[in-house]
């Protein structure tokens, strides 16, 4: 990355003191970590927007994620972060033996994390809990059924098409649940200033689903789930099901909404949750792998004796990278696994 110990004397030709070189290396690494944080910010923003638009999807899909495995993964990553910090400390003191030992422990922690992730992915792959068109509806409710109750479905709706494996090229008519729709979708009031189209007040009124805004600096703004309409499919006739004070009847030219309930209580577009789930944990997994490669490279250099009490910058910088990867998982775990 940015180390210059390329010639025997570890000091780069354009640096005056080792101090200056170390500070530059560290500052450069922190700037790179800022870009990593902003890279994941994109995914957190996608999570936040979709959770505020379709909160019922997140509540429904959360039951398919195994909290135990998520919890173990968090513990594993935190401990490997600890061993990495110990490795950095040992490297600073020049104790290469201890550094190597802690680096190996960190790598084991990393592999442990990826192993558990493989188990989780396999479980989802087998059950068809995937993204986009590969998502298969879950006929049965396995595990705790805590979320089913919320979706008492009143209002007439026909058996919309289930989101089956669309054959490419054939129009995939996707049932969609208008954020209002027949189900007691949770859509709070829309307090926007341009005249509130008061949705028919889902069961928990101004449910505030503050999105995954994980910065302590930016306060958590209260984002009520808006009942903005979501893309809708209907197969022909419109079913004026819920009366809205302001909503005019559906313009006949444009098909009205219907509320698809393929089976008991599953909201539409559940695949979006798994799309975001796989994007976030997938990108995080890639970063864990990149971290493991970097740690292995630093382990090799430690064993070759490149580092001493005077010079151990690469171990420090790889350590910083590993901690940021752990930091991102600290936020991923509650956001994906613990949506209550």
């Amino acid at each position, binding site marked *: 990355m940015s180390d210059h110990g390329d010639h025997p004397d570890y000091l780069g030709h354009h640096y005056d003191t080792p101090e200056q070189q170390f500070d530059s290396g560290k500052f450069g690494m922190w700037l790179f970590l800022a870009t990593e944080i902003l890279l994941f910010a994109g995914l957190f923003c996608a999570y936040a927007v979709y959770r505020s638009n379709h909160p019922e999807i997140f509540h429904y899909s959360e039951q398919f994620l195994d909290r135990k495995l998520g919890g173990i993964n968090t513990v594993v990553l935190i401990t490997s972060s600890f061993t990495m910090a110990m490795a950095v400390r040992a490297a600073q003191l020049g104790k290469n033996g201890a550094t190597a030992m802690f680096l190996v422990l960190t790598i084991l922690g990393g592999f442990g994390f990826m192993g558990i992730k493989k188990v989780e992915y396999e479980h989802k792959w087998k059950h068809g809990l995937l993204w986009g068109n590969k998502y298969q509806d879950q006929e049965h409710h396995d595990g705790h059924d805590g979320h089913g109750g919320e979706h008492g479905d009143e209002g007439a709706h026909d058996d919309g098409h289930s989101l089956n494996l669309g054959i490419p090229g054939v129009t995939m008519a996707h049932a969609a649940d208008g954020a209002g729709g027949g189900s007691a979708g949770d859509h709070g009031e829309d307090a926007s200033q341009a005249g509130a189209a008061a949705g028919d007040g889902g069961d928990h009124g101004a449910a505030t689903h503050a999105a995954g805004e994980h910065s302590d*600096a930016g306060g958590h703004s209260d984002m009520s789930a808006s009942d903005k309409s979501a893309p809708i499919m209907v197969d022909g006739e419109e079913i004026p099901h819920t009366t809205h004070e302001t909503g005019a009847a559906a313009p006949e030219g444009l098909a009205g909404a219907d509320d698809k309930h393929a089976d008991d209580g599953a909201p539409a577009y559940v695949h979006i949750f798994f799309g975001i789930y796989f994007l976030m944990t997938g990108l995080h997994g890639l970063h864990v792998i990149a971290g493991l490669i970097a740690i292995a490279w630093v382990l090799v250099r430690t064993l070759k004796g490149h580092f001493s009490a005077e010079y151990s910058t690469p171990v420090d910088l790889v350590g910083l990278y590993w901690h940021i990867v752990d930091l991102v998982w600290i936020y991923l775990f509650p956001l994906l696994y613990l949506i209550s």
Partner: protein
Amino acid sequence: MSSDHGTGTGHVVHPMVLVGTLGALLVLTFFTVAVTWVDFGPAAFHIAMAIATLKAALVVLFFMHLYWDKPIIAITFITSLVLVALFISLSINDTQNWMPEMIPDYAPRIERTTAGG
């Protein structure tokens, strides 16, 4: 300059500080999971985020020894968090207030005519 022995390897953190941080992180992880057993209603999300932020702060301050580093590094980290907050809050602000007087629940029929790229 942070107090180190000037050979350019940064501040050596006392091992007990690291062990203490590890312990705190594990306890907080337990809390994060514990929070979901009790029904706090809508506040649960805020609590989970607060605990996560606390854990993140512990990792950054002690494991990444930001506590002993130069202020410019802390400024970089905080700026990136502020930008993340700006990005999320302004995007959410738009998607939340989209055309409120629109006809709720009704949206046109969507069919993908072409098979995608």
